[in-house]
């Protein structure tokens, strides 16, 4: 399964970014192979529509789950339409790896 987690830096051990559309980076993780890669977010400096652009990145990467601090109305609308599950960070999560671990342990909260 492909997951995308918003991140402040291009590394799985970097702090998570609470923003989805304006996240500095997205860490794309294949939960089966444990392989990950960092995706740049062109939306970080865009004037508007960053949430939709980020949702498009998730859809293009065939993500099944996205994990972030929060999701705006446009982003959540697009992700919902794409059938991508949204989860939000819980307390105690500091890094992308933490978020992944919490998710695999079923500890994350579904958005909305």
């Amino acid at each position, binding site marked *: 399964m492909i997951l995308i987690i918003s991140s402040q830096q291009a590394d799985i051990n970097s702090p998570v970014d609470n923003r989805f559309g304006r996240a500095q980076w997205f860490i794309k993780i294949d939960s089966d192979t444990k392989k990950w890669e960092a995706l740049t977010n062109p939306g970080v400096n865009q004037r*508007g*529509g960053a949430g939709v652009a980020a949702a*498009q990145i998730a*859809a293009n990467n065939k993500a099944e789950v996205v994990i972030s601090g929060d999701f705006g109305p*446009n982003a959540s*609308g*697009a992700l919902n*339409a794409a059938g991508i599950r949204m989860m939000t960070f819980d307390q105690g999560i500091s890094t992308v790896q933490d978020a992944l671990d919490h998710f695999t342990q079923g500890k994350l909260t579904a958005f909305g």
Partner: protein
Amino acid sequence: MDKDQAIRIVVASGKGGTGKTTVATSLALSLAAQENVWFLDCDVEAPNGHLFLNPKIEAERKAVVLIPRIDMEKCILCGRCVEVCQYHALAEIGKSILVFPQLCHGCGSCTWNCSSKAIKEIRNPIGVLEAGLAKKGINFAHGVLTISEPMATPIIRQLKKWHKPEDGSVMILDAPPGASCSVVETLHGANFALLVTEPTPFGLHDLKQVIGILGDMKIPAGVIINRDGIGDNQVDEFLSQTEFPILMRIPYSTQIAGAIAAGNTLLDVSPEYIMEFQTLFQKIKNIIAENEPC
């Protein structure tokens, strides 16, 4: 400037609540006896010029953005429309194209680039334009953006196109606060920008932002310091280092503030300002003339 063309004066500020509308309406009313005055309230998110000019609204028109409607029978899911949309108002999700009307600027790029002619543009109403004669024969118009609609620029553009001043007239445009797209849209085509500020760090900070825009747009400007006497003298110090003249000072006065809060104009409480605003207009005309290309 062609002598027959209207003179367009934009009243802007940067910081909100500095007295743009007080100045704009006072200038309009002071000139109404001697000039053919047109007034455009471009602060479409919170228009309030009508409270002081009391127009009788006689004409109304919807402000719209043309948004794409996609015929999925014809769409081949090439993704070109999503790619060309600078505002991310479109997303290709699964086997459909989603449209986000509130992000759409109505530029038409998606329609233009669609290879299978699957896009039709439909009118998405975002607000209303209203016009009518106001106090002292002022030709008044304003735009009212529907609450929850996020985009002011298209309605300002349509308002300016709809309510064009007659040749030889003076048009006063009350700009929105801030220093973003809606202010730039209001300033397009202006002959002069009248900047209203207050002598506080906030007033100065935002004044500098608007001055930055004016430099890029090459529009001459002058400053009115409102609520003079409060705050500090940093605005004066800053302006003394620039080419922007201080054209008027309106002292801080609870009497003026009270009158405006009660729906009266500055001129109602202090009629001596009529002469001051007429003199101000002469100064503005002189600055415009000096800035004309030879």
